[in-house]
């Protein structure tokens, strides 16, 4: 007799579990060696706490009531709970603070194409270290940890989450037009973007071309030279630091990169492996988040989907 489980959830049996455990242990060992102590937090948080981190707690989609009538929600990532932990339990600790985690998180299944509702995330948060030193440390560690987990061809895409918004403001695009343009950009609907930009009034040819071509600018450090007139000093400094750490060749600068979560304020990351067609994880800088919990500190972090890392490792193995 068979009994169903909710779509987007799964059972893990011993053979797979052993491999997932091995990957988590290897990632964890690299994080711990670099001074990132592992933390665990409750799966259920007060919704109002999650809302403090992100307006409407948009990520957290599963809510319930407790016996007091308070609204509880399943966390959708570990970044907000760790911000709460830092403000509450490390109120006077000297920064920087370093934490790693391996924990499940829950998100709504919106696209209905085999997306996970529940997934195991492994990641790290570096709190109190400003740009670009923080980014360099987090990225170098992510690349090293994936290497330790058995990947050989992984790369990290790095962009600036505030870049396009800033560009729209600088060239004087009406606030009302920002949302549809940013939506096209985040879906990389470049045909739609081109059409919307061509309808914007009062823009010069160069400005139009910049708005349309920005999402095409991705590759090595040389792409920064192709973006005339944009303030990209931060990414250049980051490149230098990554070169010092010997991982610059693993990084792709991607000026059109945007991440869905609302709390990113600067650099954003996405982790790829050529053996699979989906990102393995991502992250970025969130300098305002800790302040919303009462301990203003700059911070950045990365979260990896452990099952996807496993899929990439298996796919790399199959390619030989």
């Amino acid at each position, binding site marked *: 007799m068979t009994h169903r489980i909710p779509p987007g959830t799964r059972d893990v049996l011993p053979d797979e579990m052993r491999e997932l455990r091995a990957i988590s242990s290897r990632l964890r060992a690299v994080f711990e060696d670099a001074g990132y102590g592992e933390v665990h937090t409750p799966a259920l948080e007060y919704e109002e706490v999650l809302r403090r981190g992100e307006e409407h707690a948009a990520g957290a989609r599963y809510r319930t009531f407790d016996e007091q009538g308070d609204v509880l929600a399943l966390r959708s990532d570990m970044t907000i709970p760790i911000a709460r932990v830092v403000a509450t339990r490390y109120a006077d600790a000297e920064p920087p603070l370093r934490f790693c985690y391996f924990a499940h998180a829950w998100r709504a299944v919106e696209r209905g194409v085999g997306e996970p509702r529940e997934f195991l995330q492994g990641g790290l948060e570096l709190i109190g270290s400003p740009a670009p030193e923080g980014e360099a440390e987090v990225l170098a560690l992510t690349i090293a940890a994936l290497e330790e987990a058995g990947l050989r061809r992984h790369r990290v895409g790095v962009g600036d989450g505030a870049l396009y918004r800033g560009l729209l403001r600088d060239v004087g695009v009406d606030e009302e037009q920002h949302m549809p343009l940013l939506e096209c950009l985040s879906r990389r609907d*470049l*045909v739609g973007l081109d059409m919307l930009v061509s309808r914007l009034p009062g823009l010069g040819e160069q400005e139009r071309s910049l708005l349309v071509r920005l999402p095409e600018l991705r590759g090595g450090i040389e792409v920064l030279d192709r973006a005339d007139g944009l303030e990209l000093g931060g990414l250049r400094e980051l490149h230098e630091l990554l070169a010092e750490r010997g991982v610059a060749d693993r990084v792709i600068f991607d000026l059109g990169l945007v991440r869905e979560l609302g709390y990113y304020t600067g650099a954003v990351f996405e982790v790829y492996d050529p053996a699979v067609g989906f990102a393995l994880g991502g992250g970025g800088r969130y300098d305002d988040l800790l302040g919303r919990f009462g301990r203003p500190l700059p911070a950045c972090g990365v979260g990896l989907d452990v099952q996807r890392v496993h899929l990439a490792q298996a796919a790399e193995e199959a390619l030989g």
Partner: protein
Amino acid sequence: MSLTIAVPRGALFEGSLDLLDSLGLDTAEVRDNDRKLLFEEAGIVTMRPSDVPTYVEHGSADIGIVGKDVLLEQSQRNVYELLDLGFGHCRMVVAAPEGGDPIASALRRLGRVRIATKYPRIAAQHFADTGRQAEIVEVKGSVELAPLTGLVDGIVDLTATGTTLAENGLRELEEISTCTARLIANPVAHKLKADEIDALVGKVRSR
């Protein structure tokens, strides 16, 4: 690294191969083989049009050629839409049997309209956006048959010239959108094979 291209077998097949020829790819083997699906040497995989986004999203093909109608119907697919290729022009329309307006009349008297289509998401979205209650009936074969037999009041379908509609006594009432062939890319390939993709996009643009 070379690119794997998903090519739709269907209305866009010839136009897609002509495009690839003009970019310097050799498609002779593809044209000569009706049954074969995978052409490794040319880097081409051929498939049913509605499967193109599936293969590209997964990364089994790096890029693909597909009608905007398929992309609209599968808007949940995580693929990048790079270019309007400018061929395969057609329109998504609402049509109903000639004589009177069966859609308006069903809405007035029965409070809802029944619509047959191969594009259930596009149809449902269009009627929701225009504030009308619709029951969408998904059919796989000739949609034109559905209103003629009384199964539905009207249809949502793709039309290039309107000939098939007219031959079946159907009249176009509303245009939902215009559709052309698009070039799509897998998000990871777009970054990891940026040079190859940019070279191809550049060639298409400068045609």
